[in-house]
């Protein structure tokens, strides 16, 4: 399974990370190996196997619709890198 530098670019763009030219070459090779390894699964005949949606033997875990204000919402929002005047602040988003 060929994994080109272009594929590294694409994956990096989806993950919003910057990858240097040197790393790109290394990652292309490494990712190709990883995919080849995982690709072994494709050799199995899974025609009769139902796709797994969840690995735990659980279903229908619910909570009732009761509202409860988080008393520590202040502390939660202060985790943000930049919080000011009741808002999370981000670089200008232009639509």
């Amino acid at each position, binding site marked *: 399974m060929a994994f080109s530098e272009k594929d590294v670019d694409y994956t990096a763009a989806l993950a919003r990370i910057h990858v240097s030219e040197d790393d790109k070459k290394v990652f292309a090779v490494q990712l190709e190996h990883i995919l080849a390894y995982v690709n072994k699964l494709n050799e199995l005949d899974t025609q009769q196997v139902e796709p*797994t*949606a*969840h690995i735990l033997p659980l279903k229908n*875990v619910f909570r009732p619709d009761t509202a*409860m204000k988080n008393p520590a919402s202040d502390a939660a929002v202060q985790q943000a890198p930049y919080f000011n005047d*009741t*808002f*999370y*602040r981000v670089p200008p*988003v232009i639509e």
Partner: protein
Amino acid sequence: MEFEPVIGLEVHVQLNTQSKLFCSCPTNFGAVPNTHVCPVCLGHPGVLPVLNKQAMENAIKCGLALNCSISLFSKFDRKNYFYPDLPKGYQVSQFDKPLCHKGHVTIVDTGVEKIIGVTRVHLEEDAGKLVHAAHGADSGVDFNRGGIPLLEIVSEPDIRTPDEAYLYLTALKAIVEYLGISDCNMEEGSLRCDANVSIRPKGQKQFGTKTEIKNMNSFRGVQKAISYEIERQKDVILSGEKIVQETRLWNDDKGSTFSMRSKEDAHDYRYFPEPDLVPMVVEQKYIDTLRENLPELPFPRMHRFIEQYGLPEYDADILTGDKAFADYYEQCASVCSEYKMISNWMLSDLIREAGARKISFADAPVTPKMLAEMISLISNGTISGKIAKIVFIEMFDSGKTPSKIIEEKGLVQISNPEELQKVISNVVAQHPAVVAEFKAGKEKSIGFLVGQIMKETKGKANPQLVNTLLREALG
């Protein structure tokens, strides 16, 4: 060349649950920004979301009301993308196993019923709200909305005109309102709509390239945006160019759509099953119980109105398009059997007077009981239809009952023949020329005389009786 538009709508309905989809944060609108938040909806590491059962139930109810099949097995998936209003870097949504699929909505377009297919209805979480500051300044994000349950309702590309799109939205909104599962307020964003629009030469089976139109904030806006987009696409094709598949934003002030930004790479959301949430497995019995407990829905109610009250489809359609309006009608109809008259008064006077005062009919001081009483007073001859107009406005302004207004203002209709005869003789004596005209065969002249009599009696004369007595007097 004649073109045929092909339109599909994607509607997001915010459910009116008390708490968010996967955490207990409150959902009410208008709170101080970022106070209805917790580690779960902010996507902090190590938290565990748990599904709000009411949200799932509301989604199934909506699916049933839209004639959908309900999935006995359903699950959540992560839709991965980065945007500042999405705290986790993914939205919990549903991909290949939506809660409901394959349904339909019936619309009534100028008397003709048409079925619009519903592809799917699924449950997902809302994103936060971006607040854009002045040019160049940082944007703000409010996560109060993040994690509020949304229903995404996707239609089949069955819609052919902007009017049909409008009717589909109206029908959908009515159904959701009847179910009581959302406030359906487009201004507050509890109902949002995107449109997929393409055109093709008439008769061609294959769809043309579509564009996605966003940013409409009213049903009329959706209708206008689609109209504009159809014309724009025609111009593009007729000038020999190709339609670019893209997202376009509607600008309501300018009345046009413009390209959002050229997205060279298509969306790659890398959906995968949400490992933190376990599947929903519902039993047929549970679905049946929900189905049995559905309220009467707008479309069947419209047909019942036609049958039970003998109303024209036009009246029944408007009356049942809004649950509270239909309830108002039925409260009147339960005490007064002048069914068509009630409808007439509601569809003209009630709407007009409420509109003039910029209030909802539901806030009008005229209660169903008052309107029914007034109509009964017309039908038993106590007041004329003309006087009723005065009474109605007075009811609107003072909130007094019709009988009280009639008594206070002395508006009771004059149905005493002797009393009327006096007025008639006077009028006949004062207008010999007109009388002569009438006698000479000018039928219209009687209208003038009736008018004079009504003027003399300040509109209180019983019109039918005036007519009869006047004709007798003119012999």
